[in-house]
């Protein structure tokens, strides 16, 4: 139609959703993915010894979800007005839905975490262990009698209720991040229901990678008895199996998505080209596919590799990196397509925002490690059953 265009004058618009928003969507999908994978694994094992990993898969995502709004607020030019979303909502705006879904998700995770730690906190208060004063405040001074297992038995209903609610809100959160991109009507790369499924597959793989990485680190930091260590390692090795299938699912969904793009007119073909040979090709082939998909798959393919701590640590970290770039490729790549002119949109450098995102990630990682040392993840060995 316009192959003979020689020259064009146009106003360029650049990229408005940069790496900070990509980080926001990546961390949400990873957090809820880690939680969902943990809950489904727990339902499969039905083993008391899985409990410390369930705490990792609930409390650490809670920390992530608590810090996430800051990424969004820093990206806004008027964050001081963001509260208006809560009463001037617009039902057709996905961000308005997110303003409700994400806090509800945080509340459900917080209450689920509370019930997971509650029995151990009670035992810690009774035995005067470190943090007893803080736990007493959290428990509102209502200390029950019995061992941690007995207390857990009594609170089973409440624990299950909040666990079920976290599942509901986790799926809503994934639908929210998927629809946050798919809502952009004129952007052919993301204006598709495929986004929701892509984010679900990304959540499954990054969440499992996260659990392997943080589970292994926890095992390295917190000393365990030999039988407990053997069992913990078995769970972590099994997470490697989950990761293997999650990566296959991610690959299948991406292949289907790229095929679908090729049948979505010239805009769709261009969107596929952005990944395969265009401006995001390096990030797609090297960071997303080679490092984020093929490397972890190779590292969790065989039982011997899954049992190797270093190999599984690398597999977990590589998966997370790959998923981050998958989200960034979708979010940033969709904005590189010019809407009616003939030059790729350019992304301006964002040193402040990128630095802020990295600082948030470092803070999160330090909080994770600190929580391993402070919070009662493991059931105390010597418990007094009497109050």
């Amino acid at each position, binding site marked *: *139609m316009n192959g003979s265009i020689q020259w064009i004058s*146009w*106003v360029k*618009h650049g990229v408005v959703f940069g790496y900070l928003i990509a980080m926001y969507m990546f961390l949400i999908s990873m957090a809820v993915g880690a939680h969902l994978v943990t809950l489904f694994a727990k339902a499969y094992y039905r083993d008391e010894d899985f409990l410390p990993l369930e705490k990792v898969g609930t409390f650490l995502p809670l920390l992530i979800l608590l810090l996430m709004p800051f990424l969004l607020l820093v990206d806004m*030019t008027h964050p001081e007005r963001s509260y208006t979303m809560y*009463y001037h909502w617009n039902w057709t705006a996905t*961000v308005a839905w997110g303003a409700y879904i994400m806090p509800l998700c945080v509340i459900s995770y917080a209450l689920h975490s509370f019930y997971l730690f509650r029995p151990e906190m009670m035992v810690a208060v009774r035995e005067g262990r470190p943090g007893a004063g803080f736990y007493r405040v959290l428990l509102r001074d209502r200390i029950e009698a019995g061992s941690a297992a007995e207390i857990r038995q009594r609170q089973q209903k409440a624990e299950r209720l909040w666990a079920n609610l976290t599942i509901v809100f986790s799926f809503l959160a994934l639908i929210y991040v998927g629809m946050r991109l798919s809502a*952009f009507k004129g952007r052919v790369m993301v204006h598709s229901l495929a986004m929701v499924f892509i984010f679900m597959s990304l959540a499954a793989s990054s969440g499992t990678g996260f659990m392997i990485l943080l589970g292994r680190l926890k095992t390295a930091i917190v000393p365990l008895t030999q039988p407990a260590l053997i069992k913990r390692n078995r769970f972590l090795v099994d997470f490697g199996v989950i990761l293997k299938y999650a990566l296959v699912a991610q690959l299948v969904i991406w292949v289907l998505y790229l095929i679908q793009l090729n049948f979505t007119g010239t805009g769709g073909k261009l969107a596929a080209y952005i990944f395969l040979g265009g401006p995001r090709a390096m990030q797609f082939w090297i960071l997303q596919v080679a490092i984020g998909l093929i490397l972890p798959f190779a590292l969790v393919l065989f039982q011997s590799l899954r049992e190797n701590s270093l190999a599984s640590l690398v597999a977990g970290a590589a998966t997370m990196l790959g998923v981050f770039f998958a989200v960034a490729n979708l979010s940033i790549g969709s904005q590189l397509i010019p809407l009616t002119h003939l030059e790729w949109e350019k992304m301006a450098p964002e040193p402040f925002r990128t630095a802020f995102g990295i600082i948030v990630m470092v803070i999160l990682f330090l909080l994770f490690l600190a929580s391993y040392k402070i919070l009662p993840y493991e059931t105390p060995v010597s418990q007094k059953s009497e109050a």
Partner: protein
Amino acid sequence: MKKLGKDMDRREFLRGLGTTAAALGAGAVLIQAGDLVQAATPLKKYSMVIDTNRCIGCHGCTIACKSENNVPEGVFRSWVKQIIKGKYPHVKNHLLPRLCNNCEDAPCLNDCPTGATYRTPEDGVVHVNRDKCVGCHTCVLACPYNSRFINPLTGTADKCDFCYHRITKGLEPACVDACTGRARIFGDLNDPQSEVSLYLSKYPVQGLRTYLDTKPKVHYVYADEAILDLDYSFLSRR
């Protein structure tokens, strides 16, 4: 105050939670009730027709808009797109004056989380309330025409509103006033005798990305297909 004490059981807690949620929901609905009531059929339907045959590419509209609306450097509410097609000696110059389409089904309005983007019910013009906009950039991405930008001075979303401060006083938008070739024609589409209605009844009309069903209210006459919607395969061939 017994219910707020330690003896509250789960049923009471859930009942209280439900009542509070219902009260908050009702309050929020009441806040928006005014907007909902006003969203009736507009009395006027402001629209613009641009006859591209009359455009001489002087960029007078761009400058008039910048001057009228204090649009900062580097961003535009209105501008002129230009392409040159063909090879010498068969070269053609095409021009397409651009501005916000003030769509009837505006994606920017649908995606605004705070209601900062709104439509005046009496005339259908889409506006940005600078006091409500949080600068989340969502509308900038949602607009399929790249007609929005974040104003570097105010930090809020910005776009053309047909010079609302002028049209409500009976004047024409600044770009229409400044157009040398009278390529831009503005008026009320609900008035069959307005210049814009008469023009639309005489000529076949084109629009930008009409397949998106946004119902743009800026119409074009005699625009080249290549300037309206580009063939993206050009980019992948390079």
